[in-house]
């Protein structure tokens, strides 16, 4: 279902000031509902074969034109730094990319606080090795069109000399589109100025396009440095991918240990995230889930924290409030708008099982490809990991961490503000463990054509 259909045509249209025809669809199109798709990771053994692949595939890569009403499946192509090298992009261009992108996510583990069980030494094969060069993703809203689109994408890389398929991971197709911990997710995306759609209720003021797309002014009034030449950098952006294994057993054990009834367990699950499983926010549904509210994109994000400064409804440490504090009064001088990301996360593996409580259940393959898009994705992710996810200082929570994607240390706590005294739960565990990650450049369509037609061919 397209965005405009989801809101029954009530979409506040705005001016288009970004070059939608040149920008890849994934930057602006919301994840379909329901959603089906595949992430394929490719290795380029031979630069000429890699460029030929780009030449053949690019005509099938969708643009962001009319993104709010475009309903067909789409293909996205993203390239790592080692991929740019493998494709023979000139040295001068390579050096114009940000350092964190060039060295890659694994090499920035200390900045991302990816240590302990999240350390790159525990990652799945290929991630962080420099072998992943090109990521191809297919998104679709039906199984049939997904399979058809995959088949047409596959024709361009399967069995082609000079290209190797490293992994192909199907995603989505979950009952009710719930993630591996049983929640509806990806609600509450940032509104982007000049994208053609005005902010939906609760999205807050539109954020300057330059925060998300290279070549436009950002919130500071100036564009970020754009990779050279202009045809390569402009209208591109960066993507971070982090593959998480969801420890469903640990999550269910936590709920059972700290809540007595089914209702209390669901309330605790909602306090961790800030939303009930349906997506209904605690701010608007403080006492019980409201699936109709959760399913309504015109209402499920339409709130502020003005009436909840102390977190009695949405705890200050809840995942949703950490990742977008909105109007929460923070103790540290912060511009919330410059730390937002576009999320295109996808759930993979077995569906959530509320009865799974064993340690073995923690390792049943299921989880999340956390996919985030920003013109400064590397810097933003380092900020989020250091300040908003694996820290509590900005919310006055000391060393408490994000209950959803934080890396918990022994004896970690989660605080639920309430009257007369707050409840502090001890012994929260890491519910989502990092199993891999990469940074990609998401080039514009002209940049894909430019790379495909390198002069040496």
């Amino acid at each position, binding site marked *: 279902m397209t965005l405009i259909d989801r809101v029954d045509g009530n979409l506040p249209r705005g001016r288009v000031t970004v070059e939608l025809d040149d920008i890849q669809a994934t930057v602006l199109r919301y994840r379909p509902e329901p959603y089906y798709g595949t992430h394929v990771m490719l290795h380029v053994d031979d630069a000429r074969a890699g460029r030929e692949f780009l030449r053949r595939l690019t005509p099938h890569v969708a643009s962001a034109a009319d993104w709010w009403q475009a309903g067909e499946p789409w293909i996205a192509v993203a390239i790592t730094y080692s991929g740019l090298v493998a494709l023979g992009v000139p040295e001068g261009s390579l050096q114009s990319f940000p350092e964190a992108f060039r060295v890659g996510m694994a090499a920035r583990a200390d900045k991302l*606080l990816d*240590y302990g069980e999240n350390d790159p030494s525990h990652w799945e094969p290929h991630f962080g090795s420099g072998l992943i060069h090109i990521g191809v993703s297919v998104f679709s809203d039906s199984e049939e069109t997904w399979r058809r689109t995959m088949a047409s994408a596959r024709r361009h890389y399967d069995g082609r000399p000079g290209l190797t398929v490293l992994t192909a991971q199907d995603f989505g197709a979950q009952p009710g589109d719930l993630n591996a911990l049983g929640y509806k997710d990806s609600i509450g995306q940032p509104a982007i100025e000049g994208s053609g759609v005005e902010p939906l209720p609760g999205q807050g003021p539109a954020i300057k396009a330059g925060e998300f797309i290279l070549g436009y002014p950002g*919130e*500071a*009034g*100036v564009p*970020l*440095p754009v990779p050279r030449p202009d045809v390569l950098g402009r209208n591109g952006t960066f993507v971070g991918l982090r593959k998480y294994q969801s420890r469903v057993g640990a999550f269910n054990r936590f709920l059972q240990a700290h809540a007595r009834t089914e209702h209390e367990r669901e309330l605790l699950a909602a306090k961790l995230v800030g939303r009930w499983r349906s997506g209904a926010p605690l701010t608007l549904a403080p006492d019980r889930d409201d699936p109709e509210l959760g399913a309504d994109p015109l209402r499920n994000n339409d709130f502020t924290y003005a009436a909840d400064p102390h977190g009695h409804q949405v705890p200050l440490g809840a995942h949703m409030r950490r990742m977008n504090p909105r109007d929460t009064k*923070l*103790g*540290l*001088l*912060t*511009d919330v*708008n*410059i730390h937002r990301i576009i999320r295109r996360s996808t759930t993979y593996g077995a569906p959530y099982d509320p009865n799974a409580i064993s340690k073995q259940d923690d390792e049943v393959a299921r989880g999340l490809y956390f996919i985030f898009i920003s013109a400064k994705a590397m*810097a933003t992710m380092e*900020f989020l990991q*250091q*300040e908003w996810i*694996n*820290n509590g*200082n*900005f919310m*006055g929570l*000391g*060393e408490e961490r994000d209950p959803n994607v934080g890396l918990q240390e022994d004896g970690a706590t989660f605080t639920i503000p309430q009257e007369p005294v707050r409840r502090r739960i001890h012994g929260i565990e890491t519910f989502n463990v990092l199993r891999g990650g990469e940074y990609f450049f998401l080039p514009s369509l002209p940049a894909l054509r430019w790379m495909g037609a390198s002069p040496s061919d």
Partner: protein
Amino acid sequence: MDKQAQLQTGPEQDPAVEQKIQRLRELFADAPEVGKTALENVLQRLTSDASKTPPPPVESVGRVGSRLGKVSELTIIVPFAPGGAERLRAFLRLFGGNLAGADEVGTVHDMRFVFLDNATRMLFATAYDGDWDAYIDDFATKIPDFLDIIDSAWEGWPGIRSPEAKDYLAKYQVTAEGWYVANDLTVAETRRLKRIGEAVEEFLDKVGD
């Protein structure tokens, strides 16, 4: 954020420490007599305290600078632009030299602005929470004017919104050779504990009446 502190072994067991002490004695061979005597006194005390675990070494923070626990140090020594010293001095005097407006930043413990060498260079020193440049982009959108008034006193300041601002600061930053932090608490934690302390005193006052 705290990684496990690396513990050193006592000086007696550690040949690296023995080497450091050896090196110290060599250097102090040319020192004035009071220095030599003082060193031997201190070394003797350290050796007799060998059972005590020495404190963890400071960590490096970002590109330049050191951190102890949650608190980091930043020292910048930078040449003034022509007329910059006069401009900055006049600006600081507008507030009587008190930069209380920095309260809202919430990560800064202290700051000092010292004019050196006949006001041709400036020393800026601060203790702050966390990582070197985590919030520098926030400063660029929230308080750019204050920073550009102060920093444009410096030679070649590119402007806080410039992508070169971080490189500029790193270029003039000098890492402290030694660093001590009494309170391993962030500014936010200190403020919270102050509020809690006041509430507890109020409570005890009422109970005690």
